[in-house]
């Protein structure tokens, strides 16, 4: 059931490549704007680089969330999925995993480039990658709950941001914090463990919450 859904999502993704690229394009446009707006002071930029990168990753993730269930809801596939799949959390997990692949993981892989744009010292780039790798799954998982709750609303975008962004704050604090501490030469293992904990809790709880939220959304 997991693989069946995964294959479906993969085929859908191949046929909607612009959706795949949207969050990444946003990420790099915004990064470039920061670099341009920051003027010629690499020190200032590099000091803020962890925060900027993490905030933009958060926002790009949010951008990709909107479409997570939208199309399936519109054409009735979501209805079918909820009625047919037993247990429902398995295909949902596949959907969330796919979302993470083209948002979280893709951004992690491109993060060295982001670090370059913002003059982040090369020695902290591995830390940045690590925090993104363990932190972004939580973003996709938590965000899916919000996406499921707002899918039946025509203009759910702002509400989705209001619902989800506060829940992203811990990930932002620990993620950006870990990179900053590394730059300051302080041990950052605590933050990375916290990111892991958040992702693990989200992984165990979110699929069930998403399933419940979808049932609510379909009962209109």
């Amino acid at each position, binding site marked *: *059931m997991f*693989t*069946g*859904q995964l*294959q*479906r999502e993969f*085929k*859908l993704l191949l*046929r*909607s490549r612009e959706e795949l690229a949207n969050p990444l394009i946003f990420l790099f446009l915004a990064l470039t704007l920061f670099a341009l707006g920051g003027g010629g002071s690499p020190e200032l930029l590099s000091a803020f680089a962890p925060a900027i990168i993490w905030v933009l990753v958060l926002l790009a993730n949010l951008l990709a969330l909107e479409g997570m269930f939208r*199309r*399936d809801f*519109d*054409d*009735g*596939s979501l*209805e*079918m*999925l*909820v*009625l*047919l*799949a037993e247990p429902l959390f398995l*295909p949902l997990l596949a959907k969330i995993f796919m979302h993470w692949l083209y948002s979280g993981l893709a951004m992690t892989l491109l993060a060295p480039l982001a670090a370059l744009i913002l003059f982040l010292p090369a020695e902290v780039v591995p830390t940045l990658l690590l925090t993104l790798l363990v932190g972004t799954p939580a973003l996709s998982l938590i965000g899916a709950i919000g996406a499921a709750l707002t899918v039946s609303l025509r203009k759910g975008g702002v509400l989705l941001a209001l619902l989800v962004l506060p829940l992203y704050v811990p990930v932002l604090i620990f993620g950006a914090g870990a990179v900053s501490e590394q730059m300051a030469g302080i041990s950052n293992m605590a933050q990375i463990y916290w990111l892991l904990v958040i992702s693990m809790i989200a992984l165990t709880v979110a699929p069930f919450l998403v399933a419940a939220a979808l049932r609510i959304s*379909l*009962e209109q």
Partner: protein
Amino acid sequence: MPILLTIKNLTCIREGRTLFRNLNLALNSGDCVQLTGPNGSGKSTLLRCVAGLFADYSGNLEAAPFLYLGHKPGVSALLTPLAHLRWFASMTGSTGDPLQALARVGLAGYEEIVCQQMSAGQQRRVALARLLISDGQDEQDAGEKRSRPLWLLDEPFTALDDKGQELIRQLLTEHLQSGGGALCATHQDLGLAGSRALALGGTT
């Protein structure tokens, strides 16, 4: 005869309007009940109640494993019919042959065409193919046991041509003969022997 659906004292009030009150219905295997009534009389809502997509009702509902075909065909525009049916099969664990089912609904040769490029009627046909493979007809004991004996059909004739409508009648006849049952909301004459009509609306 196994009972597929029992509805007891079902009452549904939506937006201050009473759609139905104290509705009772028993549907045995081999039965087809046609829901009739003017637009907005609660046909779709009743089907959604039975399917578990609408819970704001009072009364008792007991339904056998079912297959719901709603207003929206549930076919992703970006998938091919074959991919859609494979996904459906992986969700339901059905073993029916998707190619055979597509040929049966008149979509032979369209297996690998993206649904986006198909007409509304053809997309409905893809949805009908789901009914075919849900039964797992090439299994040995197909006539004996159906994995989803109850069909909930909401306006199945939408966008279909004469041949397509005839196809639905054939599918329904076969389904009923092999022990299935159906609850079908439509304005058209089903023309099936042994189908009953349940009129909604007009009562307050």
